């Protein structure tokens, strides 16, 4: 169950309380997030929408431990991450977060297999164990037969599917997707979204996704609209979201 009023209980997988984030740009202070609350349960698929500069990516970065809030707390599976040291946060990210970026961000000099294996190199898994995990992840995304291909030998949709395999290979607690279809044509975007839906439905993954695209957002179970630094429940229908001010 997703809540934005801070009324969620301790059973929530992700709890965000009174989250503030301010930036200084030049001499000006920009208040991106203001007292934001959010509760997300295990297995939820949440889409964040909002105009450019509304703080969607900032929120995702904070949830992924890539940035620190000015005030407030973020608790994931019982771990309060807002006060963790940089090194602990790095370690936490490796175990709990799977990232899917808009630009895929695959390492161009590594094959699909090697890209997916990257998070596992930090674990104590043996080579054969790593191989089994990587092959399973690439099978899930339907690219088992492309594992020796380099990113330049794959289509955009395939590259994004490799990114998804890399994000899920270490079985993280939740996935963060920043515009996962932003650089794809409609058909590839549809395939990627189907894949993410399957991860939620079949593998019970929790997914938090930022998107500008109402059609993509409509694939999530819950759409939240970020406006003036505060989250507003946008409902399920794309029309409702658009009426809420999405671009």
């Amino acid at each position: 169950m997703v809540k934005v009023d801070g009324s969620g209980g301790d059973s929530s997988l992700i709890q965000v309380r009174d989250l503030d984030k301010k930036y200084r740009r030049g001499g000006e202070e920009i208040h991106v997030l203001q007292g934001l609350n959010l509760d997300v349960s295990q297995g939820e698929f949440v889409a964040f929408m909002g105009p450019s500069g509304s703080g969607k990516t900032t929120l995702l970065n904070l949830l992924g431990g890539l940035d620190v809030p000015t005030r407030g707390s973020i608790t994931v599976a019982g771990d309060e991450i807002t006060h963790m040291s940089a090194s602990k946060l790095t370690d936490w990210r490796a175990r709990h977060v799977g990232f899917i970026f808009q630009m895929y961000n695959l390492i161009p000099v590594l094959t699909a297999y090697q890209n997916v294996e990257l998070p596992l190199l930090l674990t104590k898994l043996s080579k054969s164990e790593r191989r089994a995990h990587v092959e399973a992840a690439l099978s899930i995304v339907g690219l088992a037969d492309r594992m020796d291909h380099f990113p330049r030998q794959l289509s955009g949709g395939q590259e994004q599917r490799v990114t998804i395999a890399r994000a899920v290979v270490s079985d993280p607690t939740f996935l963060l997707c920043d515009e996962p279809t932003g650089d794809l044509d409609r058909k590839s975007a549809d395939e990627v979204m189907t894949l993410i839906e399957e991860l939620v439905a079949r593998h019970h993954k929790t997914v938090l996704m930022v998107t500008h695209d109402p059609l993509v957002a409509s694939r999530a179970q819950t759409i939240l609209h970020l406006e003036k630094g505060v989250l507003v429940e946008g409902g399920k229908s794309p029309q409702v979201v658009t009426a809420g001010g999405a671009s």
Partner: protein
Amino acid sequence: MRFTRIIWANLLRKKVRLLLTIGSFAIALLLFSFLGVVRGAFLLNSDIASASRLIVINRTSIINLIPLSHADKIRRIPGVATVTHYNWFGGIYQEEKNVFPQFVIDPENQRQVYPELVVPEDQWQAFLKDRQGAISGAKTAERFHWKIGDRIPIKTSLYGGGSWEFNLVGIYHGKRPQDDETQFWFQWDNFEERIPQPIKGQIGWIILRVNNPDDAPRIAKAIDDEFANSPNETKTETESTWVANWVKQFGNIQFLIVTIGSVVFFTLLLVTGNTMAISVRERTSELAVFKAIGYSDLFILFFVLAESLAIALIGGVCGMLLAKLIIPAMAKNLINLLPNLRLTTATLVYGLITAILVGILSGLLPGLSAMRLRVVNALRRV
């Protein structure tokens, strides 16, 4: 190691740049080794100088001769074991470019003073019997393809000029690899017989061996005191001081070599550092991804350092291999100027240590900057 593949993949992403960087490393290391070898060749003479040998020259200059009678007087000074004398001949073999050191020696005491320069007994006896006999160092004999029994003409503009002919009766070898094997010896009696009257009985310098090296300063002073206020005052030095003063005539070689070496080192540092900085900047977003998925700052530093170290090691080894190939060939060509031009294991080790040092230093700044990269900012740069 599980990260080797990543390091190699990153290294090989810009093959031309990698080759150029490795090439500059190899050339710099070759130059570095050559400087080390030249420095070694100059210093080696001091290293091999015996502590128990003293050199006596004319106080005015080494080109001024001293009377042969000085040698007899020196022989009587307490603590002196053996005395011999040398004259510089200064000739050429066939062509002007074929220069090598020819010395007029005193056969009677030569082997006692220079026991490290070994002549087979039968060849030495042949030398003693043949007034026109000559003995060549092994390197010079090899250089001119001489063999025992050859007639060797040496042209000189000194001592009345003309061509002097010698019978090659022996070839000497040094006991140690660093011993000078380029000299050409012939007999004092032959020399004395042919030189013009005014310089008869005059020798170039005296070399003596003392019983106890600790007595060397006392004996040197005693010799110089013996000839003080005479028409031929002397200057007596230990062989190592004499060699060091000889080297000084070429200028401050040590300073020159260290200066050039430092310039090579820092240029290499800048070239490699710049390559690594460009390489890191090109991969900002990739490094951010590594950090995002859980690679620590130290891992990022490790990746960058490992790359620069790999470049340094490959370039260093290539440079050393080039040095192994090129320096012996250069040594053959420079045998007149620097007979002891030898690439030693120590030079190779110093070269590799230098390469490793440059590798670490050149990767350090880009590595630290990659380490401090903020993921959020770096991902925006895509």
